[in-house]
């Protein structure tokens, strides 16, 4: 079996990290990726100049209507782009929609090749999403740890106790109230700082 020739893929995505992930993955499959981080000034011109076989674009991009129109208008365009809508494969459509990937392909491109590209893009969009959630979680944890440290410091000062005792106080408060220790730390800070301001 001869390997399929590489495809030209235009990637339009404002998320630079995500775009890099998709670009790398598709590049590894041997495709030629033209990557655009910002919405190009004229997507029409860009599609005509690069004549891509596939356009991968963030579903939330306002440029989608421009691509939608290119299959309807511009009959002079030698490489019309049509919306990939594989009605025989609703699952992959749903997966793409949920991940936020929309794809436009030239008419006549073999569906299996499109599907493979779409799967790669969907996987990277999903991975980026989990990465961002993980980052948010880490940030929250860090903020919470800082809050606990600050609450401990205030308790040590106001109750004249040492660090393990201050931590015990926070833990007991959390258990009594059925709250997380981070939440209790926030309350303690509010109260003790209020006291300090009142003094």
């Amino acid at each position: 079996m001869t390997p399929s020739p590489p495809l030209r893929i235009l990637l339009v995505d404002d998320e630079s990290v995500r775009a890099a992930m998709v670009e790398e993955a598709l590049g590894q499959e041997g495709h030629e990726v033209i990557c655009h981080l910002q919405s190009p000034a004229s997507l029409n011109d860009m599609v005509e100049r690069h004549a891509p076989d596939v356009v991968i674009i963030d579903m939330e991009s306002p440029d989608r209507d421009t691509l939608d129109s290119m299959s309807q208008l511009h009959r002079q365009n030698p490489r019309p782009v049509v919306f990939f809508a594989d009605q025989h494969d609703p699952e992959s459509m749903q997966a793409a929609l949920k991940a936020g990937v929309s794809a436009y392909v030239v008419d006549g491109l073999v569906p299996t090749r499109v599907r493979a590209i779409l799967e790669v893009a969907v996987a990277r969009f999903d991975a980026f999403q989990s990465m961002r959630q993980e980052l948010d979680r880490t940030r929250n944890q860090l903020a919470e740890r800082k809050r606990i440290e600050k609450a401990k410091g205030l308790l040590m000062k106001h109750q004249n106790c040492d660090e393990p005792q201050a931590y015990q106080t926070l833990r007991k408060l959390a258990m009594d109230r059925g709250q997380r220790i981070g939440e209790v730390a926030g309350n303690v800070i509010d109260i003790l700082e209020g006291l300090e301001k009142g003094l």
Partner: protein
Amino acid sequence: MSMPQAAERTHLALGFVPLLDAALPIVAREGGFFAAEGLEVTLSRESAWSTLRDKLAAGLLDGAQLLAPLPLAMSLGASGPACDTLAPLVLGRHGNTLVLSAYWSEGMAAPLDDSPGGHDPAVNARDFAERLRRRGTTRPRLAMVHPFSSHHYQLRDWLTLGGLDPDRDVELVALPPSRMVEALEQGRIDGFCVGEPWGSQAAHRGGGRIVATGAQLWPDHPEKVLGVTRDWAERHPATLQAMIRALIAAAGWLAESPEHRRQARDWLTLPPYLDRAMDHLPTLPLGEAPVDQRLTGLRPAADELAPVVEHLARQLGEPLERAAVEACYSPVHVDTATHQERA
């Protein structure tokens, strides 16, 4: 009279594009008209009509503000995968403006003033055609919002009035409404047809001039509709009726007094809705010439879609079945909803 059934679903997500004719869903939410029908509605701002269409078809949205031709185009499989879609309610009439850059529109009559040609859209169209011939430059690039939109069709009709061929004499492109004004100011396009508030904003900022309006070209045309998939409508008949009643109540409230319209304008200016796009609106009289945005007359009628049907048939290269048009824009849902007493 029968009492309405309880809504099958009380938490709904409706999609909209930031335009003046997104007003009814916004008023229905902010003014408590959805809540009065027992509905808790989230309004989801979308940046493209294709995204709205795809999310509606995939069931990620319960309903959406749609370009009037879109439910029919979706049902026929002309736009995205075929998805039987209904337009049970009109959400607005008029509101489109045709704007040309200062270079192309200098000295042209305002659409509805008393100067020669002020009331006849063909005068400016012929003027534009004449300038085009005289200047003999590259084809001007004119933007509209989507291939299946009244903006696209009205732009074509206006060019035809001037004796121009929309496919040969100009280049048509699609741009999102929010990008039109900037693209015109940067010289990337020479004109556009778009819904309010973008046309008046371009004129207000001085980048262009309104040379024709949708109200002139297609008087009373339904511009935006509520869109739901047939599948959704069949599974949620009572919810659909509650939604329709809430939107009709919002329209009635809006028509009651200028204070209500001012309040609505304040709601539309909120960041989740139109935000900065509304900055120039206090200078504009709503519901008057030249734009004449109407948020009344919400009962759909297939006959009013005649120009849309004609253009859609041309795009598809075949005549459309009358039954398909009537099924899509049937008034039966409005009639059912309004003939029942409130719970």
